[in-house]
C-alpha cells in the first residue's frame, strides 16, 4: 500500500515527466551531440571521425571568425547601450507625465509584438538607396545631395542593423523599467525634496539603485538574445557587405546550412557558449534571489 507521501512523489514524477522527456530529447540531446560533433570531422559518405579541438583551433585561426566575433560584440554592445538609454528615457517620461497611461504604453510596445521579419523587411525598405523613406527625406530636407548607401557601405550597414534591432527592442526595456519605477515608494522622493535634492541627484541616488535588479536582469536577458540574433541581420544584409555585419548565428548558418560543414558549424554554434553560460548563471542567480 502506498503512503500519501509516496503517492505525492509518484504524481509529481508523472506530471513532470512530459517536460523532462521533452527537454531531454529536444534540448539536452541535440546540445550534447552538438558538442560531440564539434569534436569530429564529418564528410558526406564517410563516418565522422574524432579530431579533438581541431575545429575550434581552425575557427580561432580563421580571419573570418575573428571578424564575426568582433561584429557580434559590436552589434550587441551598441544595441544594448542605446536600448538602455532610450528605454530609461521612455520609462521616466511615461512614469512622470502620464502615470498609468495604458494607451501610449500599448502603442509603444508594438515593435516588440510584431514579427521580427516584418521589422527587418520594413527597415530594409526604409533604408532603400533610391526610394527608401530615409534617403528621400534626407534629400528633400537638403541634408545630403544623393542617397546614402545604408546597407551597401560596410560601416553604415552595421549601424543600420543596430538601428533596426534597437527599434525592435527598446520598448521592452522601457516597459520593464516603468513597471519597476512604479514600485519605488514615493516617500523616498518626498524625503529627498525636503533635503533639497535636484532631479539628477534623485535619479542617481534613489531611482537607479531602487530598480537596479530589474535593469540587470533585462540587460542580461537581452545580451543573451542579441549575441545570438539571426533574423534582423539575415534579412537586412545576409551578413554583408563582405562580412561587415556577419555575426555568430549567420556564420553558423553559412557553415552548416550553406556549406554543410557540420563539425565546424557545431564548433561555431558553440563559440558563444562560454559567454552565454556566464550570462545565464547571472540571470538565474538574480531570479532565484527574487523568488526567496
Amino acid at each position, binding site marked *: 500500500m502506498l503512503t500519501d507521501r509516496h503517492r505525492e512523489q509518484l504524481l509529481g514524477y508523472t506530471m513532470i515527466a512530459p517536460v*523532462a522527456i521533452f527537454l531531454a530529447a529536444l534540448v539536452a540531446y541535440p546540445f550534447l*551531440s552538438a558538442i560531440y560533433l564539434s569534436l569530429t570531422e564529418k564528410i558526406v559518405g564517410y563516418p565522422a571521425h574524432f579530431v579533438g579541438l581541431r575545429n575550434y583551433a581552425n575557427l580561432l585561426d580563421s580571419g573570418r571568425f575573428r571578424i564575426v566575433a568582433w561584429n557580434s560584440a559590436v552589434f550587441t554592445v551598441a544595441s544594448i547601450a542605446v536600448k538602455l538609454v532610450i528605454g530609461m528615457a*521612455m520609462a521616466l517620461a511615461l512614469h512622470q*507625465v502620464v502615470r498609468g497611461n495604458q494607451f501610449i504604453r500599448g502603442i509603444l510596445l508594438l515593435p516588440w509584438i510584431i*514579427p521580427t521579419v516584418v521589422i527587418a*523587411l520594413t527597415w530594409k*525598405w526604409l533604408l532603400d538607396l533610391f*526610394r527608401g523613406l530615409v534617403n528621400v527625406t534626407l534629400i528633400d530636407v537638403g541634408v545630403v545631395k544623393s542617397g546614402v548607401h545604408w546597407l551597401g557601405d560596410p560601416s553604415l550597414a552595421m549601424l543600420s542593423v543596430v538601428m533596426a534591432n534597437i527599434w525592435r527592442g527598446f520598448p521592452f526595456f522601457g516597459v520593464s523599467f516603468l513597471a519597476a519605477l512604479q514600485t519605488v515608494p514615493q516617500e523616498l522622493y518626498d524625503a529627498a525634496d525636503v533635503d533639497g535634492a535636484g532631479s539628477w541627484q534623485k535619479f542617481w541616488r534613489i531611482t537607479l539603485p531602487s530598480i537596479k535588479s530589474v535593469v540587470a536582469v533585462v540587460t542580461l536577458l537581452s545580451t543573451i538574445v542579441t549575441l545570438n540574433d539571426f533574423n534582423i541581420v539575415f534579412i537586412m544584409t545576409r551578413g554583408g557587405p563582405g562580412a561587415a555585419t556577419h555575426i555568430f548565428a549567420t556564420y553558423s548558418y553559412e557553415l552548416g*546550412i550553406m556549406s554543410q560543414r557540420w563539425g565546424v558549424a557545431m564548433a561555431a554554434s558553440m563559440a558563444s557558449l562560454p559567454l552565454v553560460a556566464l550570462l545565464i548563471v547571472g540571470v538565474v542567480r538574480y531570479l532565484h534571489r527574487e523568488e526567496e
Partner: protein
Amino acid sequence: MRLATLVRWAVLALILAIVFVPMYWIVVTSFKTGRQILLSQNVYAPEPFTIENYLYLFEESRFALWFRNSAITATASTLLSLLIGTAGAYALTRLRFPGRRTLGAVVLVTYLVPPGLMFIPLYQTFIKIGYTDSLGTLILAYPTFLVPFVTWLLMGFFRSIPRQLEEAALVDGATRVQALVHVVLPLAAPGLLAAGLFCFTLSWNEFLYALIFIADDSLKTLPVGLSEFVVSDFAFWGQLMAAAALASLPVIVVYIYLHKYMVQGLTAGAVKG
C-alpha cells in the same frame, strides 16, 4: 508649465515618432501602386490610393497558404506547450519529490538558451530521426522554447494561489488531480490565458527554425514566405508591405487582449526581450 514637464513631453513625443514612422511606412507603401513606388511619386502618402497589393496577395501569391501554415503551427505548438507546461509547473510548485529543485533550475536554464545557438544542433537531431520538412517538425521544435517559458510563467501564478484552498478540497475528499482541475486551474485561468497568448505570438513570429527545417514550398510559414519576397535586393515593396501588415494583424489582435497581463509577466521576469 515647468521646464521639466516640458522636457518629458518632448522626450515622449520623440519616442512616439520613432515608433510611429516605420509603421506608417508599412501602411503607406501597402496602399501605393507599383508605378508610384517605382517612380518615387508622392512618397509620403498613397496617391493614387489602391488596394491592388492586398488583392494580389490572395489572388496571385501563396499568402493564404502561408497564413494557414502559420495558424496551424502556432495553434498546435501552443496547445502542446500549455498541456505539458501546466502539468510540469504544478508538479514543481505544489508536489514534493526528490530532485524537484534541480528540475526547476533546469527548466529556467533551458528557457534561456537562445535559438541562435540551438538551430544547427536541433536540425541535426531532426535529420537523424528522419523528421524534417513537415509542419509537425515545427510543432515539435517550438515547444523547445515554449515549454520552459510556460512552466516558468505558470510556476509564478501557481505560487500566488493560496495552498489552503487546495488543502480544503483535499480534506473534503477530492484527489490531487480533482483539486488541480476544479480549484487551482480556474484560479490560474488568467495565467493560462497569458501563457497561451504569449506562446501563440512567439510561434507566429518565429523565423529561424521555420527557415531551416522546412524546404517544401507548400509548407512554409508566413515569416519565411515574406522573407522570400525579396529577391537579390529587389522586391515588390507594395505587395510585401501589404503582406507585412496582414502578417502583423493577428499578433496585434492577440496583443490587445494580452496587454493587461503583459506588465505582470514582465515584472515576474518571465519574459525576455
